């Protein structure tokens, strides 16, 4: 990318110029270390559960993944609101990055949940309210990503995607409350405002899970945002070239 073309695009928008930076490199290293700590506590130092035995260790990834998938959905909803309100391309890309990472973490939640369900419940899957609403969330996120890719102008695609993005919040709320509202196989939350049903090293392992999965989430959202931003710049540059071509033709004829 030459400085000439950068100037002709939107020099006023101070977006990223690369997918990497010193800050995110340090963040990446801290994230890797925290994942190491999670492995240490989750797989080695924490004890087995009285009822579930070793299978309980899946919780240290499953619960934080689910929580961060909700955070991603909220990020998408916020970005969608700001986009619809202010037509901010920056926030539209935040929404997009949030949805991509939320989809990944929702898939991770479903996968770890099934792997946990088999040894504890005895089945991989049941269509109870929690599992069904979580599957709906996965579909809605894929729907958001698909709608945003449908062939149309950027404004049209972004608007449609933003409307789907708004639906994520009620869906997250349904997933979260499903175990309270309906009879489900899935247990109610272990961590709540009234206290934790887990103690000692098991609680600490869950805490390390939250820390490291949160760091992974932040790292991924930042990088997906940068990639999306640079893709936009390339598209805009292509548009400028096309316009320049047409102008040149106009001058000739």
């Amino acid at each position, binding site marked *: 990318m030459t400085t000439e073309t950068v100037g002709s695009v939107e020099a006023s928008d101070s977006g990223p110029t690369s997918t990497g930076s010193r800050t995110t490199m340090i963040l990446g290293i801290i994230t890797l270390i925290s994942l190491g700590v999670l492995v240490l506590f989750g797989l080695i130092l924490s*004890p*087995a*559960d*009285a*009822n*579930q*035995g070793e299978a*309980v260790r899946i*919780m240290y990834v499953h619960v934080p993944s689910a929580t961060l998938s909700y955070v991603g959905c909220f990020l998408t909803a916020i970005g969608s609101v700001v986009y619809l309100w202010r037509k901010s391309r920056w926030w539209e890309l935040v929404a997009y990055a949030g949805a991509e990472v939320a989809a990944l973490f929702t898939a991770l939640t479903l996968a770890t949940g099934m792997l946990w369900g088999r*040894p*504890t*419940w*005895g*089945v991989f899957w*049941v*269509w*109870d*309210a929690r599992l*069904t*609403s979580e599957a*709906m969330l996965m*579909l*809605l996120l894929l*729907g958001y990503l698909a*709608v945003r890719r*449908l*062939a*149309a*102008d950027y404004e*049209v695609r972004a608007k*449609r995607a933003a409307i*789907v993005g708004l*639906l994520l919040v009620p869906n997250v709320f*349904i997933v979260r409350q*499903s175990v309270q509202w*309906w*009879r*489900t*196989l899935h*247990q*109610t*939350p*272990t961590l709540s405002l009234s206290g934790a*049903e*887990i*103690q*000692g*090293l*098991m609680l600490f392992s869950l805490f390390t899970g939250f820390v490291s999965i949160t760091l992974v989430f932040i790292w991924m959202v930042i990088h997906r945002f940068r990639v999306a931003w640079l893709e936009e710049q390339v598209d805009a540059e*292509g*548009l400028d070239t*096309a316009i320049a*071509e*047409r102008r040149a*033709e*106009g001058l*000739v*004829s």
Partner: protein
Amino acid sequence: MELTPRTGPDSEGGEASSAAPRKKRRVSFPALALLVAVIAIGGFVMVKALGSATTFYRNADEAVAERNELGVKRFRLQGTVVPGTVEQTGDGVTFEISYNGVPITIHHVGDPPEMFKESEAVLLEGHFDADGTNTYNSDLMIVKHSEVYKEKESERIKQAEVNGQVPVTTMRSGS
């Protein structure tokens, strides 16, 4: 927007600028219809699925109360395994579950899950026996586990074994 490279000199600048907005409108219409259809189908599935999820299972006392209506219809049943009632049979296991003090005798065909044990809640799929009694024939058993996690006792035993040389009085007792 149409961004393909120019091929001939016949396309004039004025024509291109008037064609662009017309094309935009044409593209968005079927796509919008598709979006509405997807949302409608998704909403329908959601209502259906969550509707049936509300009666995901019946507790033992409710099942007994509805015994006559249920007949030999298939439904999910939930209750806690009554201690001292579990017996192995040739093709499975027989035991009692209870909920709110109402017991039901279960004939389960197949191996129970690993976590199946007394005083734990189980979810069963099957139906009441055709003989009219409150006996329930199950062919799928799922163990419900709670949100409470506790350190396994054997971990503490292991610790005690490792620290076996230490006099009993100074040994830390598990909380």
